[in-house]
């Protein structure tokens, strides 16, 4: 019989499936006579699920790369830790002791996580479109730049990425939180879509590029002052790195 110090520890152990059979059976009897306890467990469980549902899962290859780069001995021992390590990298940057600290030098705020989710979601939705991929097409680039500059409150020059074999398709405005975001879209010669997502954050900061991989998409994210930029494509990080330099220099 595990010694639980309070009901909260029991609820947690129950939700985490960490109770022995005897403890679980006893706890379920306790629950039977206590609808308030059941309601509380359901609330806690719903919070767990809400959070878990918001965490994107990057590829195994990316996790392997992260963990093989890690010098911490403990990371090799538990395969399940790969997922937790991913989570820390992607969302919260909290597990600095596992050799992942190179990803955690900048404190991640909720809004940056949301911007990243917004960028990848927008990429998935609009990159799949043929006729409606963009709202304003490349032949109206001048109008697009003026319009978005007006709505975003900053200069919005379209970066020229033709040196990397990319054709500019156009752009659109997107809602992000309570403000506007912009998405520029490019296409490679073999039809792969590359998007640049930009929005304003609440805090001024200048960051290095952070690389995130999620289900076949690579995102390069950096913050310049109060602006965050997220370049997303189904391409390798090395291929995207020079594009990122060009974008950063254009939209400094």
């Amino acid at each position: 019989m595990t010694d639980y110090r309070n009901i909260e520890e029991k609820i947690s152990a129950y939700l985490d499936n960490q109770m022995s059979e005897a403890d679980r059976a006893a706890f379920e009897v306790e629950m039977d006579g206590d609808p308030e306890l059941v309601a509380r467990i359901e609330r806690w469980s719903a919070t767990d699920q809400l959070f878990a549902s918001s965490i994107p899962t990057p590829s195994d290859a990316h996790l392997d790369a992260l963990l093989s780069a890690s010098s911490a001995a403990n990371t090799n021992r538990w395969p399940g830790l790969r997922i937790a390590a991913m989570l820390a990298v992607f969302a919260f940057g909290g597990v600095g002791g596992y050799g992942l600290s190179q990803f955690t030098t900048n404190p991640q705020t909720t809004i940056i996580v949301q911007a990243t989710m917004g960028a990848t979601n927008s990429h998935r939705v609009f990159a799949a479109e043929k006729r409606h991929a963009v709202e304003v097409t490349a032949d109206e680039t001048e109008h697009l730049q003026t319009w978005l500059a007006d709505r975003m409150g900053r200069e919005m020059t379209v970066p020229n990425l033709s040196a990397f074999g990319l054709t500019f398709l156009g752009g659109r405005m997107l809602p992000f939180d309570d403000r506007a975001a912009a998405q520029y879209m490019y296409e490679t010669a073999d039809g792969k879509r590359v998007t640049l997502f930009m929005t304003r954050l609440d805090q001024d900061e200048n960051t290095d590029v952070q690389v995130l991989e999620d289900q076949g998409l690579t995102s390069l994210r950096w913050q310049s002052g109060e602006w965050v930029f997220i370049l997303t494509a189904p391409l390798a990080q090395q291929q995207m790195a020079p594009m990122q330099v060009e974008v950063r220099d254009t939209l400094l």
Partner: protein
Amino acid sequence: MEDDFDIGADDRTIEARSELRAVMKRMNDLPDEQRQPLLLVSIGGLSYAQASEVLDVPIGTIMSRISRARAFLNKEAAPQVPGIRSAT
């Protein structure tokens, strides 16, 4: 076709989004020592024993930190803890 536009799985309700944002904010506000074991177990799928080894703290401490983290995420008062754990 406009009809082709498919929001699908990303179609969270406004309410769920704002609740998610609140939860993520509270997750950010948690001290590392509570957030780490919670993430390792609830998202990472580690057992308490594994989390205990990874973080190099006793299982009882893992259990206590995870339950405190969950209470915080659910906007509840911090769990009351008796002074001494009788067994570990």
